């Protein structure tokens, strides 16, 4: 699992900067340093109005952005992690889970919901980076498993929005096996000819990249997102060299052939709806599927 420092998160500001302007009211773009009223920045879907920098946004925001009229049904909301290995480092894992829940008001590193997108049914699983780095626990695996089962039963397309440091170390091999568990379900979804869209956002690493995030019928990403298998720090340490400019960014992956397109947040809904309409929902009007 790859850990990212908080200061890279965009919405959070260094304590040094906090003195310069009222706390919590302003967003300072980490890329172009422009100060934007937080309300305005939020209204702009968390995208910098000056340079198009995409801030990390919550699952809730993705849901309200994508589902028609912001209406959707969350499923398996209560499903959460256990501590099967009684793992403890500087803190016990049980304590970490409790803290993450308290801080984020979330139960797990992923939320799953279904609703309509431009009047077409879709299910969306969206990862929560703020919950232990969006790491993949058994519970995350189970929630993905269940949303895929739901898609198969209801015959509706799936979208997963990845934002993950990778596997959850504190669940060790249990976490690792979620790669097989989720990929297995995706293969069943594929067998039913139901589309799966993988949206990779900043950051997507490790176990996510090595399973569901890279297995979409289309893999797409937000601009400038950091995406990879090994974290930049590990690579730098291994090769003992600085990494090239733009390495592991969305645009780099697009160029290397691992993404289908990079999409601005404001165009996301229409791109998705266009895709599922073309490949899936258009057939229905003629003769139905199969």
């Amino acid at each position, binding site marked *: 699992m790859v850990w990212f420092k908080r200061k890279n998160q965009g919405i959070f500001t260094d304590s040094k900067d906090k003195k310069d302007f009222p706390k919590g009211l302003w967003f300072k773009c980490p890329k172009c340093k422009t100060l934007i009223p937080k309300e305005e920045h939020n209204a702009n879907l968390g995208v910098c109005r000056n340079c198009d920098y995409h801030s990390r946004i919550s699952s809730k925001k993705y849901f309200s952005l994508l589902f028609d009229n912001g209406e959707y049904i969350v499923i398996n909301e*209560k499903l959460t992690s256990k501590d099967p290995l009684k*793992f403890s480092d500087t803190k016990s894992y049980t304590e970490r889970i409790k803290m993450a829940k308290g801080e984020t008001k979330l139960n797990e590193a992923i939320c799953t919901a279904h609703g309509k997108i431009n009047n077409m049914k879709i299910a969306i699983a969206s990862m929560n980076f703020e919950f232990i780095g969006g790491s993949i626990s058994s519970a995350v695996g*189970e929630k993905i498993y269940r949303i895929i089962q739901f898609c198969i039963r209801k015959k509706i397309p799936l979208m997963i929005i990845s934002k993950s440091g990778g596997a959850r170390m504190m669940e060790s091999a249990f976490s690792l096996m*979620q790669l097989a568990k989720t990929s297995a379900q995706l293969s069943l979804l594929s067998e039913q000819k139901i589309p799966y869209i993988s949206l990779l956002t900043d950051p997507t690493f490790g176990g996510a990249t*090595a399973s569901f995030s890279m297995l979409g019928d289309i893999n797409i990403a937000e601009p400038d997102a950091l995406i990879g298998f090994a974290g930049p720090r590990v*690579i730098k340490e291994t090769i003992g060299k600085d990494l090239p400019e733009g390495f592991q960014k969305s645009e780099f992956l697009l160029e290397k052939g691992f993404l289908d397109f990079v999409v601005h947040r404001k165009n996301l809904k229409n791109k998705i709806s266009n895709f599922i309409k073309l490949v899936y929902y258009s057939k229905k009007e003629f003769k139905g599927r199969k």
Partner: protein
Amino acid sequence: MEYLDFEHPIKELKEQLDKTVSIGKETNTDVSELTKELNSKIHSLKKKLYSNLTPWQIVQLSRHPERPYTLDYINALCDDNFIEIHGDRNFKDDKAMVGGWCSIDNQTYMIIGQQKGKNTKTRKYRNFGMANPEGYRKALRLMKMAEKFNHPIITLIDTPGAYPGIEAESRGQGEAIARNIYEMINLSVPVISFIIGEGASGGALGIGVADKVFMLENTWYSVISPESCSSILWRNWDNKEKAAESLKLTPKNMLKNKLIDGIIKEPLGGAHQKPEVVFKNVKDCLNINVKKLHSLSSKKRIMERIEKFSKMGVFQD
């Protein structure tokens, strides 16, 4: 013989023994009583030491430089007819991942595994058993060939991880592993995996989605190496013992957590002490299990494979 740090008490006794024998020869004295005593001391020390290995000591043994590697297994197991197959047909031949056709007790197999080197030169040549994307794609090509000709697949897992490098990322290390996991789930032929050394994370699972997964006694399987875990969680490398403990990466823990299907016995002190014993144990396990798997239809096998991995995990609903 190379000794690991915790094996030094054995080394000392062995040295005493050697000295005693040579003194006996030089001075023409009967030292048989003394050597007998030393031998039995060594034996009981070994028994004591190796039957209570800590997880970190198991990790150390899994990396023992004299441990048999993938090609040693292939040479020992197969009926002297191994045909090595090279390349991913796309970029290059990855030397950290080897594979090919062979028969074992007259049953044809595709056998694939990560390969480590035995000295400085070959270690580098094999990239320390860390495959690049082309290694995983080569493995997948071989597995697909096995499926085409309807022969079972053996994978031998021994890797400190998939290689973390600029080129590896540029060629899609994550995608390559994801693709393998995805494709392995649906292979129509039996797949049996053996962890013969290190089973580190996605780099291991990339050839490890099997009907049956067995771990040798002195091997480990985890989402991360104890060293990396220590450096991330404790911000230093000094907690690797504690990390090895916490990660529950030993065969016993893995079996208890129902994440593997069985454990294969090693001789006292590790596979390198008597490789022929380990080869035989692996072969016996293989023969039994391939027969069982062959008795199922491919549809049933795939269904059971999916179910097995889908059941893995502990959560609260």
